Structures are given as structure tokens and as C-alpha cells.
């Protein structure tokens, strides 16, 4: 298990003076590599979350180079000073739009220029290529196509944003955390519920709670902390046998209330890279309801009836 060097603290001053310059070497090579938090980015303010003096290693110099105009504390930004396809600060990304981009609904914060946002609908799309590129009917309602020329600023819940370059690769990511992707990429629904897979060559932007952590299989991840994976086979679900037996014992003795979910992990094998974040407060993913609903097609009418009764009982319990 290795983490890319330079991650997460103590970046060196970035080349070219832009501390947020995403280096983005070809994704897919083993670390150091893709999507690695750029130098000088995401560093904490002095003393922030750091061990107190005398309790740890000395902290490398904070910051990096003096902030250029595009820094978070810099001067007022205009279309000329906004970066091209780069981070404005750790939480805001600027897409230099010339043509089309797919964007998640609600990700757009502001824009300059002549940009139109059109719903991605499966069949009545402005162009046929949308349907060909966006082959996930469950997620269609949550996405728009931004068309035109200008600069679009995107953000997501104040989370850290990172741009990733795919080079003839595939990467599966939590649907809630995908903010935007270029139309050269193809989006497909992953077998794992709540995740989507991007295939091809192009750029996409995804959010994470805290900097992204890269690990290599074999590894087991908590479903809530899993951000995505690249190049490895889809995970299987691992149940911790010891935890389960302990839990049953505890339940028998009546001492323990509820399961925490720690007994269930996604098990990764093979080769590839796993992307992790600090687990976030779960946000309602509207697609999950549609996903589950489409699965109920498998049920017989009597099964559907008893499921409905159980769901009604559960909904009433929570009120």
C-alpha cells in the first residue's frame, strides 16, 4: 500500500508560479501519477490539524510560492485571469468551455460568456451524440450539457475538487461525487449501485471530502469512504465473520443496539488503483430510488405487495 509522494502535506512550490497547476501526468501509470493533489494545493493553514509543537515532526513550510492573481486571497477575478481548466482554489474549478461538457445538476456556480445549459434527455436530445455518450438512463435526469463558449466555475458542497485525465482508460466513481466530464468520455452505469464508470480519453472533475487517498489492492474499503477505482475488477462484498458472530452474541445478550456497517466491506483484488476519501455525511442520491425501483421488475406481484407493506411500515416507524 503506497501513497503518492507529495500527498498530502508539504508540497513544493509549483512550477510556473501557479500553485494550483494540476500536473496530471498520464493517468493509469502507477503513482506518482494521476490526479495527485497538485503542489501547494490543499495545504492546511499553519497549525491547522497539525500536531502541537513538540508533539510531532516539524511542518514543512506552508504555502508555496506567493499567490498569483488566481489565488484564493488574490485579486478580483475576471474572464482573463480565471485559469483555463484548472482549480481556482481547492474547492472551485474553472472549465474553459469551447463546445460541450457534461455537468452534474447544481455543480455550476457561475459562468462567463455565452453558455447554455440543456437537460440531458435520453431521446429528445439536441444531438444524437448525447444519447450515445451518456448511456445511463438512471442518471440522465441529474445531468445537463453545457454548450457554448466561456468559463464555467463549478463546485460541490465545499469539497475538494480534482481534475483527472483519462488516457484510453476506465475509472469508476461515486455518482454523487462526479461533477463534470468532457464529452470525449463515455459514461456508463456501474454494476455497483451508486457508481458510474467513465471510459475513454478525456478529462473529468470529481469532488472528495478531503484530499483523495490512493491505495492499491489487495485492500478492503468501507462503502461510504470509497470514492472509486481504476483499472481493477469490480469489488466483491466481504463480510467480517468475526464481527458478525460477535454482533450476534452481543444482540443475544441484549447489550448492543444496532449494527454499524463495519461488518461489510468492498473487497478489491487484482491490480489497479483505489480512490478513497474520508467518509462523508451521506447525501441523498436521487438515482438510487430509480435504481431500486427498476430492480423491482424482478419481483412477482405477491412479492412486490409484501415489499410494499414492509416499506410502508418502515416509513411509518421513522415518523
Amino acid at each position, binding site marked *: *500500500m503506497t*501513497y503518492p509522494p507529495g*500527498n*498530502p*502535506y508539504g508540497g513544493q512550490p509549483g512550477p510556473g508560479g501557479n500553485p494550483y497547476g494540476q500536473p496530471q501526468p498520464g493517468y493509469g501509470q502507477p503513482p506518482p501519477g494521476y490526479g495527485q493533489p497538485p503542489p501547494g494545493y*490543499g495545504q*492546511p493553514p499553519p*497549525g*491547522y*490539524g*497539525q*500536531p*502541537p*509543537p513538540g*508533539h*510531532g515532526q516539524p511542518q514543512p513550510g506552508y504555502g508555496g510560492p506567493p499567490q498569483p492573481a488566481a489565488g484564493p486571497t488574490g485579486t478580483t477575478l475576471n474572464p482573463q485571469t480565471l485559469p483555463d481548466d484548472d482549480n481556482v482554489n481547492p474547492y472551485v474549478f474553472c472549465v474553459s468551455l469551447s463546445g460541450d461538457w457534461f455537468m452534474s445538476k447544481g455543480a455550476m456556480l457561475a459562468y462567463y460568456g455565452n453558455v447554455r445549459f440543456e437537460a440531458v434527455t435520453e431521446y429528445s436530445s439536441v444531438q444524437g451524440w448525447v444519447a450515445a455518450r451518456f448511456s445511463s438512463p438512471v442518471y440522465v435526469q441529474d445531468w445537463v450539457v453545457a454548450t457554448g463558449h466561456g468559463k464555467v466555475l463549478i463546485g460541490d458542497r465545499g469539497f475538494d475538487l480534482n481534475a483527472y485525465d483519462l488516457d484510453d482508460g476506465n475509472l469508476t466513481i461515486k455518482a454523487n461525487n462526479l461533477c463534470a466530464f468532457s464529452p470525449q468520455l463515455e459514461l456508463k452505469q456501474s454494476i455497483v449501485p451508486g457508481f458510474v464508470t467513465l471510459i475513454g480519453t478525456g478529462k473529468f472533475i470529481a469532488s472528495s*471530502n*478531503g*484530499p483523495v*487517498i490512493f*491505495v492499491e489492492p*489487495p*485492500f*478492503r*474499503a*468501507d462503502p461510504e*469512504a*470509497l470514492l472509486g477505482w481504476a483499472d481493477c475488477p469490480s469489488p466483491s462484498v466481504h463480510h*467480517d465473520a*468475526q*464481527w458478525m458472530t*460477535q*454482533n450476534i452474541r*452481543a444482540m443475544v445478550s441484549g*447489550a*448492543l443496539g444496532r449494527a*454499524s*456497517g*463495519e*461488518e461489510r*466491506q468492498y473487497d478489491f483484488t487484482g491490480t489497479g488503483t*483505489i480512490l*478513497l*476519501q*474520508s*467518509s*462523508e*455525511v451521506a447525501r441523498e442520491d436521487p438515482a438510487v430510488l430509480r435504481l431500486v425501483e427498476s430492480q423491482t421488475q424482478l419481483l412477482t406481484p405477491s412479492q412486490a405487495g409484501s415489499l410494499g407493506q414492509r416499506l410502508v411500515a418502515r416509513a411509518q416507524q421513522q415518523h
Partner: protein
Amino acid sequence: MPFEEVNSKVVRARVSPASPVLARRGAMLGYSGQVTFRPVHGQGRGIGGIAGAALSGESNPMMATEGQGEVLYGYKGLHVTVLELDGAAPLVCEADRLLVHDAGLQTSVQFLGSGGIKQAIGGAMTGQGLFTTNVHGRGSVALLSHGGAFPLQLNGTQVGVDPQAYVGHVGQLTVDLAARVGFRDVVGRGSGEAFQLRIGGYGTVYVQASEQKF
């Protein structure tokens, strides 16, 4: 075994048969190696032991992590601060701020009321609780905070802290509640800073950059 800060929100613990760790339940992000998790009941031998812990509400569901491997811990995107306790003085904090600590450390529940009825009432009014958790021994602790915690060094000086921003403290410190409740507070037009914790002595106070409790 000290914890390694992977980033501001995630710590990595190396677990071996000789050094298991105790963590908040649900805080495991992922692991590699032969590692098993076992639910345990959080608090140790405090006042009244487990019964006291259940009464006080300071009984956080914990789990033991055993085996050989590396485990990543984080919780709901909250910031993490790693402290090394030298055993000279206990760490005082609330139980739900403990993300993970060495299994060799002992935790106990302290009843604030022993400091007098004034302090007990103060605890109830500030939402600080009537009970806090003491962590004794020598080892590593990872504390949760909202917005990141920063240390304030006290050398016989005194500092006033917003009760909601207070995370915990280490050292020979006295914590006292200062209430300046005037007529304006009663009618809801106060500054919102009517209650303050006055902390004095020698040690370190940890304060988070947010007034959000969790």
C-alpha cells in the same frame, strides 16, 4: 505506535498483535492485511465503570482492531488531530470526539459535578455535558473536530473559549464556566457569547475552528 496523518481528515494506524487499537465504530475507511474488528463497549473503569458510562451518555460505541495490517480511519469528513500523550496528564475531552486511540490507553468517565454544583449546572447549560472522558496513559490519540483543531499553549495564563468550540485539553488546567447573562440574553438579544469556558494553568487547550457540535 503513533498514527500517521494521511491528510487533514484521515489517519493511518499500523496494527500488530502487540499493538491493537480502539476506534469509534463506523470510522474504518479501509484496510489491508489480516485485520479483524470486534465490537467493544467504549469506556473502561471510570466511576461506576460500564454502568456509569451508560448513565452518563459518555459511552461511545467502540471497536477493537486486531491483527496485522494497516487501517485507515476517518469519520463523516471531520478533521482529525493526532496527539501523543506522554502519560504525565490525562487528555480530557468528550467521548464522541475520540476517533481512534492505542488500546493501551485507559479511558474513564469523569463526573463534572464533583467540582461543585456550579460546574455541573454549567456543564448542562453549555451543552458540554455533565460528564467528560479522561484518557490516561502513554500513547497516541486521534481527536475529531469540525473545521480543524488548533492548540493553545497556556503557561499560567488564562484563556476564554467558546464552549461549542472547545475540543479538549491536556495538562494541569482548571476549567471554569463564566456566565455573563444579562437582561439582553434573556430577551434573546445577547451577543451569543454569554457563556465562556475560562481555562487557566499549564497545558494545552485544543479549540476547533467552528462552533458546530456533533
